[in-house]
């Protein structure tokens, strides 16, 4: 850390060291406390839009588990249910088995690509409007302002000494926050069990302990994150700002302070004009700073902390209206348009900026995944057959010289009613089947009853004395599963499974 200046060049007798104390007092602060941000309530079209989004998203969250959907048989009547115990996922008319989890993978891919699309079009719209951190923080700040007052009142209360009035305001605020937090955690668990039943169990203290633990943890995180951490979560904990920052380009819409129009800013505009100074539209009223939930100044330019919630646009537009200037000193614009305006060109955003190769590719990928999922969903069978051949031993020689192979056959009945299937074999000469565990069950076909919404596994031994098959090391054949007597007017379902029959591969052993 020390650099010695070449002494030959200096006339001084003492070597001069250009050393700077790293721990100089003014640089010594390694840690910073969080400074309270009390955003002023904003009014305007973006604030109204944000409220609408908050109401819709919270509505979906709190109402969804209570929607009913009548299903036949023993299936649960909850419209949206992640049934961990029985390994089923219900979504209205769709019922997903664990091996169909690729639908969820598809949804996640759509969510990912959709996020890319929205970000390249509208910047960090997710952060500003839809992220749970933003939604619940908005809700908490709203509660705070109703109880403690707006920005200035809250700062005053922070600074005030403890009194009955301060204590009761703080206490009431915490209580309401806590109730919201409990409701947040409490409704999460309803997605995993029958909501009315679980609600009753929760109230009477009979719910499983995992439910209480989940509620406790989510209550704690909601309370801390939305009540006290707020912007700290976005700035220090969340990876999205970094990732989303990388997905923006020159044509993404970003909340921007149009410095080319606002600067030079003057708080005493008329005086400055009178003095003949160049005057921008910004009157330095700090309204944009006061409403910012992230505690930043949008006039410093595009920055990591900015969640693009557009509340500063509302604040500034109101001021522009008052001083009789056109709106949009702060607005959604692209960095290309900003640069063009700086260069003196008068260019404005229009919808054609939305259509560009990048957004079209994202959109195509998003629609493609969606259509592929829709297609497979519509062509989904209610009967699935899986065959697991015995691998040890591959085959067994019987005393009469016949060869036997073993298979575990799994028949999945995805309907909510009992069904019977006929299992038979195609393309294996002389094949005889035997069902394990059922005495005397020998034949060329078996009728197998499968309970509603259940998998039935049967162990089948297939043997043949056919010389040609025995000679072959491997012979292809098919298991065929046909539905018998389907109920109602649904057509009978059929499934086939290509299987291999193993014979001895040591025909040459004696000769060698």
């Amino acid at each position: 850390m020390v650099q010695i200046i070449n002494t030959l060049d200096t006339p001084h007798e003492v070597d001069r060291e250009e050393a700077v104390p790293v721990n100089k007092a003014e640089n010594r602060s390694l840690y910073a406390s969080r400074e309270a941000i009390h955003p002023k309530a904003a009014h305007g079209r973006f604030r109204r839009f944000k409220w609408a989004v908050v109401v819709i998203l919270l509505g979906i969250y709190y109402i969804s588990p209570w929607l009913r959907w009548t299903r036949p048989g023993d299936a649960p009547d909850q419209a949206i249910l992640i049934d961990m115990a029985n390994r089923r996922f219900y979504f209205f008319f769709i019922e997903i088995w664990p091996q169909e989890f690729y639908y969820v993978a598809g949804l996640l891919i759509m969510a990912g690509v959709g996020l890319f699309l929205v970000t390249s079009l509208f910047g960090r719209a997710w952060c500003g409007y839809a992220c749970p951190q933003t939604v619940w923080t908005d809700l908490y700040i709203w509660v705070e302002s109703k109880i403690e007052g707006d920005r200035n009142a809250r700062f005053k209360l922070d600074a005030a000494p403890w009194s009955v009035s301060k204590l009761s305001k703080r206490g009431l605020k915490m209580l309401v926050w806590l109730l919201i937090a409990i409701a947040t955690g409490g409704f999460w668990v309803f997605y995993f069990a029958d909501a009315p039943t679980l609600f009753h169990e929760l109230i009477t203290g009979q719910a499983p302990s995992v439910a209480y633990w989940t509620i406790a943890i989510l209550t704690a995180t909601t309370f801390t994150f939305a009540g006290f951490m707020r912007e700290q979560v976005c700035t220090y904990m969340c990876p999205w700002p970094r990732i989303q920052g990388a997905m923006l380009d020159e044509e993404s819409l970003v909340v921007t302070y149009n410095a080319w129009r606002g600067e030079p800013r003057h708080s005493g505009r008329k005086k400055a004009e009178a003095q003949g100074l160049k005057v921008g539209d910004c009157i330095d009223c700090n309204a944009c700073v006061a409403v910012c939930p992230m505690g930043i100044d949008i006039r410093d330019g595009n920055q990591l902390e900015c969640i693009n919630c557009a509340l500063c646009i509302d604040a500034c537009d109101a001021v522009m209206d008052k001083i009789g200037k056109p709106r949009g000193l702060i607005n959604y614009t692209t960095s290309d348009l900003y640069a063009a305006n700086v260069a003196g060109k008068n260019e404005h955003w229009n919808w054609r900026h939305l259509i560009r190769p990048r957004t079209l590719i994202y959109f195509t990928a998003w629609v493609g995944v969606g259509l592929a999922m829709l297609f497979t969903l519509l062509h989904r069978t209610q009967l699935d057959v899986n065959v697991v051949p015995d691998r040890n031993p591959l085959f067994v020689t019987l005393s009469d010289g016949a060869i036997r192979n073993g298979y575990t056959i799994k028949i999945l009945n995805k309907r909510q009613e009992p069904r019977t299937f006929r299992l038979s074999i195609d393309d294996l000469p002389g094949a005889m089947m035997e069902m394990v565990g059922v005495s005397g069950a020998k034949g060329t076909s078996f009728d197998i009853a499968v309970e509603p919404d259940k998998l039935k596994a049967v162990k089948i031994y297939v043997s043949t004395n056919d010389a040609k098959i025995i000679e072959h090391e491997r012979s292809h054949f098919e298991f065929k599963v046909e539905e018998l007597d389907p109920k109602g007017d649904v057509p009978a379902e059929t499934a086939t499974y290509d299987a291999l029959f193993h014979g001895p591969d040591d025909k040459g052993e004696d000769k060698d």
Partner: protein
Amino acid sequence: MATHIEKDDVSGTATTGHTWDGIKELNTPLPKWWLYTFYACVIWAIGYTILYPAWPLPGGATQGVLGWSSRGQLEQQMAAVAASQKETVDKIAAMSLPDIMKDPKLLAYAQAGGAAAFKVNCVQCHGAGAAGGKGYPNLNDDDWLWGGTPDAIYTTLKHGIRYTDDPETRDSQMPSFGVDGILTPEQIDQVANYVMTLSGETADAGKAEAGKQIFAENCAACHADDGKGNRDFGAPNLTDKLWLYGGTIDDVKAQLNKPSMGVMPGWTKRLDDAEIKELAIYVHSLGGGEAPATQ
């Protein structure tokens, strides 16, 4: 590396004064809650090392105030499983094998329990797939030396074969026709050729004809006149396609000269009665099991 602290124009924050290839580092202070989170983790870690086994010391690690150990936890879990299975195991111990097999739940439990016991006790000789090998019977096929009904398999498992520690063990001896000079090498060749014809294999017709008489005098007592064997003595069926010690004429001659005879231990010392029953049911279900004798 020069130390030159300056103010960054864009952020207004001071740099640390370190430069790497022209890249400077901002000296942004960490949020205090990060520090407190770190302290909380330290306190958690101290509490953890007091409550749970942690510090390695000469003579063993500290035990922890709670007295928890992974071995103790396993014992608890095993005890809980044993308690939950007790009812089923007691039923299996009390019921006859055919009755167990008539109850689908007990059958499934016995098959699973037997499969587990098989993997621990039996695979060493009979192989993981129970397919055996030369001298070790394949348990998947339908050829049984001492019987393939559930009860016969159970008896074999319980008392073993030629197992000297159990007086009730199943025992039999095939004479060493060659080594002990009971038959001449020529006679052995003849009877071996005859044995080959029993299972339809090609053999020297002249020798086989001569061997027929030798077979009737020396072998039929155990292997029966038609060569189909006798399960009371564990005498193999010589007419089928399965050979425990090999199916070539040289293999047959070797058995006649100085026979190999397998030994299987009885399992009463290692397994309790319910486990032996489960094993019998599992082996019986491998594909060659014979129907229980009807009463």
